[in-house]
């Protein structure tokens, strides 16, 4: 035990739920000014030099994580991202610098109490193979000495939150799929409702389909529980998808840039960040933007009662050989120029359904896919809760059209 621990108050509460008391730290430099406020976690000149290493694994890292935010630490192997994560719950002790958790120097708490107040999720889940799922989830509440009844209730609550079949609770981890194990790992980390969650490459050991689903689940979960999450990943797409902010680390634990994914993709601060984001970072930005946020064009639209001549005029104006047919704001379909010869109004031409429709909450990246695979190089944007693989449903509301030019505008504008 360190002297510093011995001098800490014996009854320092584990920071679960409520903001913990500020620990006595005597002559040490004081906690940040916003202690107990909006900042959940602050890394202050954090440095780690492993014994015998010629260069630091982490070098003077400053990072602030606001409450309820998900920050991703990304970088190539050897960039110290995992070391940084482990210094937060003191699995690795820093050589110098300080980690402030809710305004408390993490070294002022007994290490076991500190860790019981921080959720931890690791690669391949790291479940205890000799314990049933329910006992795995109950790990930290048991260490905290919760009454049995409360533990049981909490286990069932978490099973529900993570969509785990109650039947799984009495199985051993080896009988679970990789995705199920990872969910149990998250349930275990959340068991005592810690305000901070550390995740070390949580999805790198599961296949891409399961990974995408688990990522979606994490986002949905985060909208409900609002944890402060530090996520370590080498997968930049995962970071872009999940993180509120991304911290890019270079080899030797040097922070290259930190900011919202959108900012990094638009303006990488260094060549290293630009390289790490990849050559397709323009495309990647599209995955952050929604169709609804782009400037939609009205497009070549006519009402059902429009005459063939009116439709031809609209086509000429818009430079297309087809028109969108709407009844009021309801999308009825499209009619081609060669179908107008024999009819009086466009409705008589029996408009055909659009195959290439996107919804306002679709990412621009998906919209791009729709555009380049559609014959007309256009995605029709609809407000349509029932849109499926077959295209727009009969009650879809027409919002506008999106072209490649519009997408480019969205990225550069």
């Amino acid at each position: 035990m360190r002297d510093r621990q011995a001098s800490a108050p014996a009854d320092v509460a584990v920071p679960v739920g409520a903001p913990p008391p500020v620990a006595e730290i005597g002559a040490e430099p004081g906690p940040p000014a916003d202690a107990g406020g909006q900042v959940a976690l602050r890394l202050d000149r954090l440095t780690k030099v492993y014994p015998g290493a010629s260069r630091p694994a982490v070098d003077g890292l400053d990072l602030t994580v606001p409450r309820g935010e998900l920050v991703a630490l990304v970088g190539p192997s050897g960039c110290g991202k995992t070391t940084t994560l482990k210094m937060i719950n003191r699995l690795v002790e820093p050589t110098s610098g300080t980690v402030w958790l809710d305004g408390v120097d993490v070294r002022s708490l007994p290490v076991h109490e500190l860790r019981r107040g921080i959720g931890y999720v690791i690669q391949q889940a790291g479940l205890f193979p000799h314990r049933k799922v329910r006992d795995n989830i109950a790990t930290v509440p048991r260490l905290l000495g919760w009454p049995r009844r409360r533990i049981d209730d909490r286990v069932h609550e978490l099973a529900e939150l993570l969509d785990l079949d109650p039947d799984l609770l009495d199985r051993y981890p080896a009988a679970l799929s990789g995705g199920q194990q990872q969910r149990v790992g998250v349930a275990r980390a959340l068991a005592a409702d810690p305000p901070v969650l550390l995740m070390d490459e949580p999805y790198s050991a599961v296949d891409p389909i399961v990974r995408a689903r688990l990522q979606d689940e994490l986002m949905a979960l985060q909208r409900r529980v609002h944890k402060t999450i530090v996520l370590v990943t080498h997968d930049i797409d995962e970071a872009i998808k999940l993180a509120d902010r991304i911290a890019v680390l270079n080899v030797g634990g040097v922070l290259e840039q930190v900011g919202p994914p959108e900012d990094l993709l638009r303006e990488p601060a260094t060549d290293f960040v630009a390289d790490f984001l990849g050559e397709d970072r323009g495309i990647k930005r599209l995955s952050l933007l929604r169709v609804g946020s782009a400037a939609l064009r009205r497009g070549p639209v006519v009402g059902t009662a429009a005459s063939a001549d009116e439709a031809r005029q609209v086509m000429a104006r818009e430079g297309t050989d087809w028109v969108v047919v709407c009844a009021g704001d309801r999308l009825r379909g499209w009619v081609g120029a060669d179908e107008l010869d024999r009819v009086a109004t466009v409705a008589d031409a029996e408009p055909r359904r659009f195959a290439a429709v996107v919804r306002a909450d679709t990412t621009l990246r998906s919209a791009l896919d729709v555009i380049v695979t559609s014959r007309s190089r256009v995605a029709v944007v609809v407000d349509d809760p029932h849109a499926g693989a077959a295209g727009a449903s009969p009650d879809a509301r027409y919002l506008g059209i999106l072209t490649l030019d519009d997408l480019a505008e969205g990225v550069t504008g």
Partner: protein
Amino acid sequence: MTAPLAAAEPLVRWDWVRDHTDDITAALWEHLHLTAVSVAVGFAISLVLALVAVRWRWTYEPLAGVCSVLYAIPSLALFGVLVAIPFFGLGFRTSLVALVSYTLLILLRNIVAGLDGVPPAAREAADAMGYERWRRLLQVDLPLAVPAIVAGLRIATVTTVGLVTVTALVGMGGFGDLINDGLSRDFPTPIVVGTVLSVALAVALDVLFVGLEWLITPWARARGAAAGGSGRAEVAT
């Protein structure tokens, strides 16, 4: 070597067996007692040594080295030395010391291998959840090392059952007394009875351990028959 056995003598004289059931039962209990106490004491010592070796890694090789030397000492020589020391003399203590010293190497290596075989992810998770060192050892490391530890206990027990017969030389033989008796009288029946029962006892105890492991490691069966039931660590003999 003793003189060849008389050709006319049958291998087993059942009337002798009938007349000596009390002696045979007594030999069984003595054999069992000596085996159980030796393995138990050996296990207790090995466990402490293994925990020291795992905690302070540099001690492992020296400890294993000492155990190897003990293991390599011929039993006859060991008996010879111990019998000459007044505290030990002929009997239980000398037998125990010899038998225990032969279990140490096997048990130490298996316990250490078992503790080393704990999945690093489980260990890291335990630390990160806030287990104290001793609690992690009792609740995570040792339970996960059970298959390797039981594997060591099985070998140590079977070996000890065989070695107990040799301790007849210092007056504590169990079935070894029967064998000794038969050898000294050119009388095959006790030799056969002692040998067969000794082997049977070894097999029975081995089966007992298999059952015990099955009972206390239900989790190892969850991974299915394909994985062999238990992630058994290497066995050092």
